């Protein structure tokens, strides 16, 4: 797996909020087509880390490298321009707009004279939801009329449309039922084929073991360790999350 070059590389990332250390010394490589899970208890720093990668927070120190290029994620726009997309926990969709307008939210396609090119946006949306097998009634459907799983499918499809390198998923199935969770997991799984690196936050270890190639454990801002899911088990990970097992570095 480490034959390929990492698409995203975090090195010695630290984040302090005043005197509080939110993240201390975090390093992680994500390879194209790889799914890495980020686990840890509430307050471990998972969301902070996602926000650092997506440009919402600037790290206090450390470097972020995208395909050999060291970048500074000064804003969400910069992160997006580097091909990094986030699917937020609370679904950043505009409820009363159509699926296709959400797909192109803030990046609408226009024709030569500045008119919205609905035809292109609709057909691209249709193509994408077909490819990812997101079952929605139509690209014209209003988000509000969709189920939770369909919405999350739309959110992931949107991220896929724009992400060239990395997709960050912040608990994508937290609010979903069993069948819908399975559907969303299928979609996440299919991202591997697109050679996109995926970092997923999840509270469900079952899900982590179903989806992820590697799992990275955080505890109180500390990076406890990284394991390949094939070479570990739930007990070890739980031990790492709860602190029964000390950090690799210690």
């Amino acid at each position, binding site marked *: 797996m480490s034959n390929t070059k990492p698409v995203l590389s975090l090195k010695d990332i630290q984040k302090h909020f005043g005197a509080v250390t939110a993240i201390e010394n975090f390093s992680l490589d994500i390879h194209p087509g790889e799914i890495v899970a980020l686990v840890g208890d509430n307050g471990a720093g998972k969301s902070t880390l996602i926000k650092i990668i997506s440009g919402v927070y600037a790290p206090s120190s450390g470097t972020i490298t995208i395909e050999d290029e060291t970048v500074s994620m000064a804003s*969400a726009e910069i992160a*997006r321009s580097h091909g990094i997309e*986030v699917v937020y926990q609370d679904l950043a969709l505009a409820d009363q707009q159509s699926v296709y307008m959400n797909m192109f939210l*803030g990046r609408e396609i226009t024709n030569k004279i500045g008119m*919205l090119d609905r035809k292109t946006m609709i057909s691209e949306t249709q193509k994408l939801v077909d490819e990812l097998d997101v079952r929605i*009634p139509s690209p014209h459907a*209003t988000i509000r009329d969709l189920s939770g799983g369909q919405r999350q499918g739309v959110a992931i499809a949107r991220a896929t449309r724009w992400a060239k390198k990395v997709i960050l998923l912040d608990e994508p199935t937290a609010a979903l039922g069993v069948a819908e969770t399975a559907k969303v997991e299928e979609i996440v799984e299919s991202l591997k084929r697109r050679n996109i690196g995926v970092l997923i936050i999840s509270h469900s270890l079952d899900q982590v073991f179903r989806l992820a190639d590697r799992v990275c454990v955080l505890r109180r801002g500390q990076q406890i360790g990284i394991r390949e899911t094939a070479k570990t088990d739930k007990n070890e990970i739980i031990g790492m999350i709860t602190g029964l097992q000390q950090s690799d570095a210690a």
Partner: protein
Amino acid sequence: MSQSKPGNPTSANAAASRSLRQIVGRINLQQYVVYFGFLAIFLFFAITLGDNGFLSIRNLSNIVLQTAPATILAIGLVFVLSAGEIDLSFGSIVAVSALAAAVVMNEYGMVAGIAAGMGAGLLAGAINGTVVAFVRLPSFLVTLATMGLFAGIARSMTNLRSIPVLDGDFAGFFGSGSFLGIPSLIWWTVLAVAVGHFIYRETRFGAHVLATGDNPQAASVSGIKVARIRLYVLMLSGGLAGLAGLLYAGRLQAAKYTLGESDLMTVIAAVIVGGTLLHGGRGTIIGALIGSLMMGMLNNGLILMGLSVSDQMIVRGLIILAAVAVSLREKAR
């Protein structure tokens, strides 16, 4: 579709047909309430007042002429509401703009007067927009305050005096004149509706306005500059209030601090009845036009029926209440 039995909610087909039914159901009732209302009121007056001149071409075209300023204000309000904001001050801006135009025009000529009127409207809108977008105060409170502020300025500008508009070209251009046999007020209405509809429906700006009103957080993380959108919609509302002020001044050939005073309720009612959501994210310019014409027709019909001013107000209030109740109840679902 209606034959599929309930009880199998997991099947994608059932879910699809259910949401399709929801969509169809909502569109029917929500978007078209105003057309049924318009038709119902028209038929009612046509039957009861048919002999009283309601149906005469002259009367019908009068209705359109009289609603021109309200329609133009309604277009601005559709943008403001769609962005999740509100503007209560446009009536006062109408007066300030009309007075500014009249005073400057009598001194420096028509072009300067038009510039002064439009400039005053845009400036007032920019003040609203700046406070809302960058000081981050709720537009309801900001424009409630500036409604009083601008009304006070309008009163003090000329010490409550009415200012005659002496320029004949101006009166023709904005008021009583006509072009190709069609009154200029109708031209202005058509132009404003067409441009407004185009911007609202067909441009990125329109899409960003809707996204901002729908889910500002989502709009913001998607790279939309929501503060700038809020500034622009309130400036647009101010600018259109300036244009409405010019139309009033042109038609009445005078400007007074009372202009636009009574438009607030009418315009809000026209826009809401027309199918624009009060809390943002969805709206229609054409609906607002129909809503505005409906309010004008109501005014006209009640006068022809011989109702006293106080009775007119009561009946109008009740009808607005009923119409708003119908259109909002459908939307709540």
